[in-house]
C-alpha cells in the first residue's frame, strides 16, 4: 500500500525501495518495495515494531544508507544516485538530523554545536532565524555550556536547534525522545511540532511511542518492511488502537 499525500509537493519521497542485508541464511529483507511521500511543511511519524524496517527507511531517505532497488528523492534530488561528496553536501545543506542519543560534540559549546552544519559549510546563520530558533528551544542562557553541563532534555533541544538552524528541506529524527523522561520528551516534541506549524519546517520522525507519534500530523505504519497503514491527525489513543489492530492482523499472516 502506497502512502501518498497529494495536497502538497513532497519534501522526500521513496519509490519501490528495497533493502536487503546479508546473504544466504543470514539474508534479511528490511524493506520490500516501500513507496511513500513526505509532504513539505508536514510532521510525519513512521511507526512500527522492532525490525519492521522503520529506521532503515529513514536512513535510506536521509542518504545515510543505500537502497538496493527503487529510488529515493529529497526534493528534486535523487539521493540514490549521489556519490559521497554530493551526498555529504546534501546532508549538510538540505537535511537536518536528530538522533536518539549522542547528538552533540562534547568539545563544542551548545552554541557551537548548533552552528556546526553552518560552520562546516562556511555559512553564517541568519540572525533573525537564529533568534527565533534559540528562543523557541529556550536555550539562550545555556549557549556557552558544554554538552556535559546540560541535561538530557536540554541536549536534545540543542540537537533540534542544530537541525533547524540551516532551514533544511527536511529534518529526520530517529527516536528523538527515546532517551528522555516523559516531561523532557514532551518539551522536545512540542518544539518540533511548533517548528512545523509556525515555521513551515518538514519533519520525518521514527518512533515506537504512540504518545510521541500523536504530535505528528500523520503517522505511517510499517511492518515487515512494508507500509501497512497510515493515520492522519493522530492522537495517542487512535495510534494505540491501530497498533493493536495491526498486531492481531499480523498474527495469521506471519510469513
Amino acid at each position: 500500500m502506497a502512502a501518498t499525500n497529494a495536497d502538497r509537493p513532497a519534501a522526500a519521497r521513496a519509490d519501490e525501495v528495497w533493502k536487503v542485508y546479508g546473504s544466504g541464511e543470514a539474508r534479511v529483507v528490511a524493506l520490500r518495495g516501500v513507496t511513500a511521500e513526505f509532504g513539505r511543511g508536514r510532521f510525519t511519524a513512521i511507526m512500527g515494531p522492532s525490525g519492521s524496517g522503520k529506521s532503515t527507511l529513514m536512513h535510506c531517505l536521509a542518504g545515510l544508507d543505500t537502497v538496493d532497488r527503487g529510488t529515493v528523492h529529497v526534493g528534486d534530488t535523487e539521493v540514490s544516485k549521489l556519490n559521497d561528496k554530493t551526498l555529504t553536501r546534501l546532508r549538510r545543506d538540505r537535511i537536518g538530523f536528530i538522533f536518539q542519543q549522542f547528538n552533540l560534540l562534547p568539545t563544542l559549546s551548545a552554541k557551537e554545536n548548533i552552528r556546526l552544519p553552518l560552520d562546516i559549510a562556511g555559512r553564517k546563520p541568519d540572525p533573525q532565524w537564529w533568534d527565533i530558533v534559540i528562543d523557541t528551544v529556550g536555550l539562550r542562557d545555556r549557549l556557552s555550556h558544554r554538552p556535559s553541563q546540560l541535561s538530557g532534555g536540554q541536549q536534545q533541544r540543542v540537537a533540534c536547534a542544530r537541525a533547524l538552524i540551516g532551514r533544511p528541506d527536511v529534518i529526520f529524527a530517529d527516536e528523538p525522545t527515546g532517551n528522555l523522561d516523559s516531561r523532557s520528551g514532551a518539551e522536545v516534541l512540542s518544539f518540533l511540532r511548533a517548528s512545523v506549524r509556525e515555521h513551515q519546517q518538514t519533519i520525518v520522525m521514527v518512533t515506537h511511542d504512540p504518545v510521541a507519534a500523536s504530535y505528528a500530523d500523520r503517522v505511517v505504519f510499517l511492518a515487515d518492511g512494508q507500509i501497512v497503514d497510515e493515520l492522519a491527525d493522530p492522537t495517542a489513543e487512535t495510534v494505540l488502537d491501530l497498533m493493536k489492530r495491526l498486531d492481531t492482523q499480523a498474527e495469521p499472516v506471519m510469513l
Partner: protein
Amino acid sequence: MLRATFKSLLARKLRLILSGLAVVLGVMFVAGAFVVTDTLSRSFDTVFASAYSTTDVSVTAEPKVEVSEFEGEQVAAPLPASAVDKIKTLPGVRSATGLVEADGARVIGSDGKVLTSMGPPRLGVAWTGEDDLVTLREGRGPTGADEIAVNATVAEGAGIKVGDRVGVLTLEPKKTFTLVGIYGYSGDRDSLGGVQEVAFTEPVAQKLMLDAPGSYTSVRVQAAGGVTPEALRDRIAPALGAGYVVKTGDQLAEENAADLQEGLAFFGQILLGFAGVALFVGVFLILNTFSIIVAQRTRELALMRALGASSRQVIGSVLVEAVVIGLVAAVLGLAAGVGVGALLAYLFASFGGGGLELAPLAVPATAVISSFVVGVLVTVVAAVLPALRAARIAPVAAMQDVATPDRPLTRISAAGGAVTAAGAAMLGVGLFADTGAELWLILGGVLVSFIGIALLTPLVSRPVVSLLGRLFSWSLPGRLGRLNSGRNPRRTAITAAALMVGIALVTGVTVIMDSAKSSLKAEAARVLKAQIMISGDQNGPRAPTYDPAVVRRAAQIPGVRAAAGLWSDQVVIDGDKQYVNATDDLAALAQTYGTGGSLNALEDDQIAVSVPEAAERGWQVGSTVTVQASRGKERTYTVAATYPEDSLPGRIMLPAAATRDFGVPQPVLGFVRLDDGVPVSAVLPQVKALVADSPEVSATDAAAFVDDQAATFDTLITMIQILLALAILIAVLGVINTLALSVLERTRELGLLRAVGLGRAQTMRMVTVEAVVISVFGALLGVTVGAGMGTAVTRALESDGITELVLPWSRMGTYLVLAALVGVIAAVLPAIRAARLNVLGAIAHD
C-alpha cells in the same frame, strides 16, 4: 581470567602491533649490537690466530712510549741484530727471524692519491720470503734497494701491477720503487684483517720504517721439535734480560684480539646506548597504549570486578597482556636484530675493514637473553602504571556510562617538578663538580630530567596545545582538531613527551657541537695569522705528513713573510705522557701563528713551555727536563723560554733537532704567512705546486682550512641525528597509535559529524591538525629542553675551550617544521580510516 585476557588481546591486534613495534625496534638494536660485535670479534680472532700461526715465540724490545689503542699506533723500539743472533744460539730454537714491521708505509696509487685505510695499519715490512702464511701470487720478492712487493689488498686498492713504478711514503718523503711481486696469505686471503702491507728488502725497511739500520722490530722464533712455545719463552726471556718482551704466538694473538675487542665493545656500547634511548621512548608509547586500553575497557574491567574478580586479578590480566606483547616483540626483535647485526658486520667488513673475512653468523646467548629480558621488562614496566589504574576501577563503573574522570594533575605535576629538580641537580653535579663519575651523573641526570619533564608535560600541554592549535583555527576542521588534541592532556602529553626525548637529545647535541664549532672558528680567527695552510685529512691513527723541504721552499716564494712546519708526537716528559710540538723555525712559527711577539730559535737542547704548563709543573727558565720521544734515547733539555698560552700551538715546544726521534718524523701541518697586501691567489698556486709530491696533504687558504676542521662537527651532528632517528621513529609510531585510538574512540562523534555534513577531506584535515599539534608540541618541548641542556653542558665546558654559546635557530626551526611534517605523515592512516568510516555504522557504534 587468563582466557578473557587472551581474548581481549586478540581483539585489539592493531594497537598491540603498533605498541609492540616500539619494543621490536628497540630489541632489534640490542640484539643487533650483540650479534655484530660477536661476529666481528670471532672474525678478528681468526685473523690474529692465523697471523701468528707461524710464530711460536715473539720477542720485541720494550717500547719507548706506551701508546694505547685510542691514542694511535705504537712505535716499536728497535731491537739490535745481536739479540737475534743470541736467540739463535739458544737450545730448543729451530729458527729465529728478525722482522721489520712498522705502521706508516703509505702507497701512492695509480691515481696519484695515497691509499687510505679506515683503521687497519699500513705496514712496511722487510721481505722474509714465502712461508706457510705468505705466498707470492705474482712475481718475486724484492731483492734490490728500489724494489718492493705488496699484498694483494694494496695492489687492488692502489690499482698497481707488477712492473709499475710506485711511490711510497715512509719515515722519509716519497720514494719511488719498482713493484716486483704481489703476495697473498694462506686460505687465498688478500690481507690479514684489512692490513695493507708493503715489503722492502731488509736494509731498506730498516732505514725507511725504523730509521735504525741493522735493527728489527721483533724476532719470530720457531721451536725445535719437542719444545713447547711456553718452555721456549721461559728460556729466552732470562737469556735476553731486561728491556725485552717475550711472548708466545698464542699469547700475542689473544692480546691483539683482546685489544680489538675493547674497540668493538665500545662500538657495541654506542649501539646499545641508542637502543636504550629507543626503548626509553618505547616505554612512553606502551604506557600510553595500555592507559588507553584500560580506559576503553573500563566497563569491561568493572564488570569483571562486579562479577568477583579481585583487583589483583585485574592487575594480573593487564600485566599478562604486557608479558605476551613483550615476548612476541622480543622474538621478532631478536630475528630482526640478527639481520641488522649481519648487515652491520657485512658493511664493516666491506667498507671499514677492507677485506676482513667474516666468521659465520651466529647468535650469541647474550643476544637471546638480553632480547627477552629487555623486551619483557620494558613492556611490563611500562604497563605497571596502567595496571594499577585498572585496579582502581570501581565495580560500579560497569553500570555507569561515563568513564572515570582523570584525577587532577596536581599530584603528578608535583612529582614531575620534584623529579625534574632531581634530574637537573644530578646534571649540575655531573657538569660542574669533580666527582669522577661525571659521565654517569650527566647521563642519569638527562634521563631523570626527561622523566620529570614528561610528568610535567600534561600541565603545560593545555595552554601550549591550545595556543598552538590557534594557528589552525581558521577553519572548522582545524578548530575541531585543535579541540580534540586538547581533550586528553595526559595522552597528548605522553605522546608528545616521547617525541620530545629524541628531539631534545638531537637539539642538545647540536647546541654543543655548534658551540664547539663556533668556538673553534673564533679561536682560529684569533690565533691563526697564516693565510695559507698545508694540511691533510687524517684517516686512521696516523696523521698525514709532508716533506719538510716544502716549508723551506715556501719561505723563498716572493710575497711570503714567513713559513713554518709543525711536528707532533706523544712523549714521556719527566715521567708523564704528553703531546708535544716542534717546529723547524720558531721565529717563523710565531709570525704565522699565535698572539705573542717574536721568539728566538731554540738550540738543540732547549725547549719552550707555555706559561700555564710551566706553572703546573713548577718549571722556570733554566729548569732541566727529560724527554723520551717515540724513538731514540732519553734526552735532557733546558727550559729556554716560557710563552703565553695561545702564542704558539700546544703547551710544549721542542727544538727542530728533536723531530728525528718523533714517531712521525715529518711535519703534520704547515703555516704560510704572506706579506701585507699580497693576495692569497698570488702565492697559493706556488705552494700547491710544492706539495704536489706530498700527496697526503694539500695547500688551502686558511679560511677553507678552518671550515674543514669545523666540518667534523657537522659530520658528528649528522651521525647523531641518524642514530637518534630511531627514537624519533618510535615516537612517530606513538603519534600514529594515539591518533588511531582516538579515531576509534570517537567513532560515534565522527559519524555524527559526517551525518551533519562534514566532508571526507574535512575529516582528514581534522585528524591531521590533531596530529600536527601533538607533534609540534613534542618538538617544541624537545627543542626547548634540548636547548636548555645543551646550554648547560656548553657553559660547563667553558673552561675546556667551548667559549661560544650558539643556539642553532635554523636547525631548531627545521626540527619544528619536520615535526609538523611528521604529524602530517603520522595522520595519514588514521585520517583515511576516519574518512572511510561508514556513517551509519559509526553512529550505531558503542
